């Protein structure tokens, strides 16, 4: 029982991580994939420490690499402690990767989000978002296409109005001639007002 454990006697009624205040993980059991994740963090920390050393080496206390080196060193040490302690724990028998950590819906959504990221620039904000909303609401709900279309387009329109018109955030237009369209409405409005 090291000093790092002093907070472990808290109650864990909420182990799935739905709240950040009570994150997932069990104090005395290892979840599937936890050791691999800890190992990955250790490897990544070591690489970052190497990279931080490359910024300026041990040139000076005031070098731009000083704080990055100190922090990545802390990362390596704490990651190492986590790996050792995780390795000592027994796995949690009731859990599997596909059941508790990465169920099918999460993998599907990961795919959808990656597709969104790839399509955003060539296709443009409006078509990509419409496709994303329609696909994801359809996958999650058991409602008919009418509901899915109405909710998707309605909420997308609202988001677009708030961000594009009020906050003038220029999302990638892609294949939709947004700028011409808005100018047209602006002209219409101005002529109407004049």
């Amino acid at each position, binding site marked *: 029982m090291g000093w790092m454990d002093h907070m472990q006697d808290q109650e864990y009624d909420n182990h799935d991580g739905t709240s950040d205040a009570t994150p997932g993980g069990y104090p005395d059991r290892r979840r599937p994939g936890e050791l691999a994740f800890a190992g990955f963090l250790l490897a990544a920390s070591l690489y970052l420490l190497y990279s931080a050393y490359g910024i300026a080496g041990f040139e000076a206390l005031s070098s731009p690499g000083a704080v990055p080196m100190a922090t990545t060193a802390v990362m390596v040490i704490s990651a190492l402690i986590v790996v050792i302690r995780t390795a000592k724990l027994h796995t949690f028998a009731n859990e599997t990767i596909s059941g508790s950590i990465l169920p099918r819906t999460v993998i599907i959504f990961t795919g959808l989000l990656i597709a969104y990221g790839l399509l955003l620039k060539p296709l443009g904000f409006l078509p990509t978002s419409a496709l994303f909303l329609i696909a994801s609401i359809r996958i999650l709900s058991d409602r008919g296409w009418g509901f899915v279309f109405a909710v998707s387009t309605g909420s997308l329109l609202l988001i677009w109005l708030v961000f594009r018109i009020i906050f003038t*955030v220029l999302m990638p237009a892609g294949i939709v*001639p947004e700028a*011409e369209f808005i100018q*047209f409405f602006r002209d219409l409005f101005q002529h109407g007002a004049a």
Partner: protein
Amino acid sequence: MKKFIIGAVSALVMATSAASAADYPTQEIQGIIQWGAGGSTDTVMRSVTPHAEKALGGTVIMQNMTGGVGAIALNYVEALPADGYTLLMGAENPLLYKVMGLGEKDYSDFIPISILARGTPILVANQDAPFDDYAGMMAYIKEHPGELRLGATGPGGLPSVITAMMNTVEGKLDVISVPYDGDGPALTALQGGAIDVMPAVLGASIEGIRAGNMKPLAIFDVTANEKLPDVPTITSFNDKYNDMLPWGPFFGVFVAKGTPDDIVAKLASAYAEGAKNPEFVELMDNRGFTMMGISGQEAQDFLSKWQQNTTWLLQDAGLTKASPEDFGIARPAK
């Protein structure tokens, strides 16, 4: 309703056909500001553009795009089609990107629409500093080597250029250079006594000087400034500075190279018109900026002269990563 449909359809058709300069602008124009909201570039651009919009008869949507000392914004605008629908609103820094190793592109990949105004550098000191003018500061540095804390804003910033000038004229100064991420935070630190002296742009320090929170040592110009007529010019202390002055940071609006000439002309006349607006002129005057409002060849010449002088000054002071020669920037003729 019919008119509406026709309009909507024609808007779609227009999008697909090549933009013709006669109708320019047919859509909103994007203005990318190289620096963050609330900074001087931001303030200047947001106050001149509404006047220019009126003259242009279009809409310019301004957005701040920060990062990489402005290089992120510059590369972003450069990569977009040169159709006059994206403007770069920036300051002098890109002219130093190449020699400082900060980027491969600079204003030579752009056409200046308007160089709006120029700032004047000034040397200010903490109110409790044991000297009252430039000569006093020099004497103090000689008596107390390695004691004076001089503010800086990173390589290529105004303080680094002014410091390079002082090193060139007076010989290497033995001072501590404390880095800040902008002249605002540095001037705050100056008032709190964390640094002793700061080379800053006049506009940023003028209110502090008026209130007696910091004291001016010398103005980096060949003539006295009408905003602070009592502050001596640096040339009155040492006339070697005459070779390098006047020098100062500037603000300008640019479009990517390859933009059709008539669109450039339209934009240039709109910004020239906007820069004449009395409210804007008054704002710039209050902040101690000198109006320029130049465009075309005059602006090109100004940019290349500025780049020649400054890059070689930094090169001779040993502050560059690569020689200006590598980029075909010739040493200025004496």
